[in-house]
């Protein structure tokens, strides 16, 4: 992977230049579809963008220096980690990548939840702490199916390289793995029925309760980027046509990502929020079953 190529992927596509507007688009789509399903008109198209600018322009509240530093650094780190994960997505065939980038991707995708956990604790609010605790418990619960699905794919492809994995057909493994990953999306994106870590009626905004102005703006951005990265990862894995031309691949990548947003928003609008223990059980039971199934198939059906 050349430096130019890496920079292009980080800063242009599927990184910064693509991801930030699409993050706002996805946040808008989610809110708009929810509103339409509820018989409302919903927010205008530019809403997430204006929310972001308005929060940036608010004056931060005075805080002790160390806390202020931590509360500013954590959302920046979350944004950076997600952008890094996006840059690794093998949207184009032979787009570089390196052996082991799967491991890096998994690590980078874990940065935003980790930052959220820390954010909850440094904000020194009881609700922030509760949100952080919930985030941590859930992360343990969904990590098993999430990692099992990716490991199964790697085992079946006999490679730790994302572009190799994404180009092999192996539907017998891919299907349960994709289902397991899809199950993990609502909890990683904190939407219903698994919006436990940011349950407003229980613990305000969870980890981000105490964040204001620019710091909150960065969290909102990180959240939007997580939407792009996670739906993007799913899209890359769901369309393994090795020989497709690059424009087709790009179009299909975007189309699958956006369709997935609509599906997730529709499911969220039609469900109530589960409790922490109930949500964790879904992942331990059904998530793990799917993940283990993918692994078993990967091993016995090479």
């Amino acid at each position, binding site marked *: 992977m050349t430096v130019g190529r890496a920079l292009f992927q980080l800063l242009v596509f599927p990184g910064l230049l693509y991801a930030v507007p699409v993050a706002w688009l996805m946040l808008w789509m989610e809110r708009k579809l929810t509103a339409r399903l509820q018989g409302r008109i919903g927010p205008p198209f530019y809403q997430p963008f204006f929310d972001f600018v308005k929060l940036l322009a608010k004056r931060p509240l005075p805080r002790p220096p160390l806390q202020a530093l931590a509360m500013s650094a954590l959302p920046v780190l979350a944004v950076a980690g997600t952008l890094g994960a996006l840059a690794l997505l093998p949207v184009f065939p032979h787009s570089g990548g390196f052996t082991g980038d799967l491991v890096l991707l998994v690590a980078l995708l874990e940065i935003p939840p980790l930052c959220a956990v820390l954010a909850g604790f440094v904000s020194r609010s009881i609700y922030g702490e509760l949100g952080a605790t919930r985030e941590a418990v859930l992360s343990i619960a969904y990590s098993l199916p999430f990692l099992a699905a990716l490991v199964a794919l790697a085992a079946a492809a006999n490679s730790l390289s994302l572009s190799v994995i994404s180009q092999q057909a192996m539907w017998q493994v891919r299907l349960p793995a994709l289902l397991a990953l899809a199950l993990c999306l609502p909890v990683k994106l904190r939407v219903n029925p698994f919006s436990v870590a940011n349950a407003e009626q229980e613990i305000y905004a969870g980890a981000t309760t105490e964040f204001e102005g620019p710091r909150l703006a960065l969290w909102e951005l990180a959240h939007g980027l997580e939407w792009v990265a996670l739906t993007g990862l799913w899209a890359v894995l769901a369309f393994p046509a090795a020989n497709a031309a690059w424009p087709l691949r790009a179009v299909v990548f975007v189309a699958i990502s956006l369709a997935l947003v609509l599906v997730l928003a529709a499911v969220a609008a039609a*469900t*109530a929020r589960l409790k922490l223990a109930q949500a964790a059980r879904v992942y331990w039971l059904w998530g793990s079953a799917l993940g283990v199934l993918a692994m078993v198939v990967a091993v016995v059906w090479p």
Partner: protein
Amino acid sequence: MSPVIPVGPYHPALEEPYKIELDCDGEAVREAHITVGFNFRAIEWLAERKNYTQDLALVERVCGICSNVHTLTFSRALEQLAGVEVPARAQHIRVVVHEAERLHSHLLWAGIAAEVIGFQTLFMTCFALREKVMDLLEAVSGNRVNYAMNKPGGVTRDIVDPGMVAATAQAIRTAMEREIIPVFTTDRTVRARCAGVGVLTRDEALAWGALGPVARASGLPQDIRKAAPYEIYDRLDFEVPVRPEGDVLARIVVRALEIVESCRIIEQAVDGMPAGPIDAGDFIPVPAGEACARIEGPRGEVFYYVASDGSDVPLRVRIRTPTFQNMPTVALMVREQTLADVPLIQASIDPCYSCTDR
């Protein structure tokens, strides 16, 4: 983590300021302490310093959700003191507004219950239906909230279009039966959150003096409209829904069925509405004496005690609202439940703290 988690006085799940402090072990609740008094406006103190006409406007503002209940009970206490009989047409109109208020209050509650379990779509559905009730109330009284319909001796406004009232009640009944009740009773995520949560057994409900839908969801068939009928309730055909389970789901079902019954009551009250005056005429100041009145509000029994010395200012006005009785059961119900259940359990008694604090 600090062992005591405060919920309130300002919290997204609470409609009004009050505070539950939870002794928690992780997410499990060990003990709960309730603090009220944030809405204490000294209404009883003020009522003893204003004249009866001013008091009518004052008690209407004890609570913005069940405002009609307060003026109705207060008026009934004054009518008792003066020995005045309310004209039949006024009684019918009182029942229509009384039940319409129950409709909007229960729909409001259903919406809040959906909201606290994170089911925003159901919240929106309930509130969209509630707007139909608001239209009905506005058409009848001219106001969306604080209807100012009751006065000692009758009502202030006539119902000019009874057909519209009956048609709206019927439309609400159909929408309830087709859209809202099925979601609350069959949706899997709703059941997962509500069934078996916050149980109040029949014995506990008796011992703690629970009232209204909370008591009825714990198997106590207790309703002032049946036990001590007022206005025209003895001549109406309606059921009092009772469930034995005592959990949050039972409270949802009881209130949902009550909405259907209220629609039937409105249809009957409008149907049999006689012609005639809507007001027995002015009789204030009332003679010296004391009187009690109680009626079945949306949340349970509302009780008024009025003492008069014959002047135009009451000697004493005492208000006891159902939340005052139901509130302590929350501390009982949240024990050994999880933190996530607390907002739902406290909401399930349909608390009204502006009523409780006064």
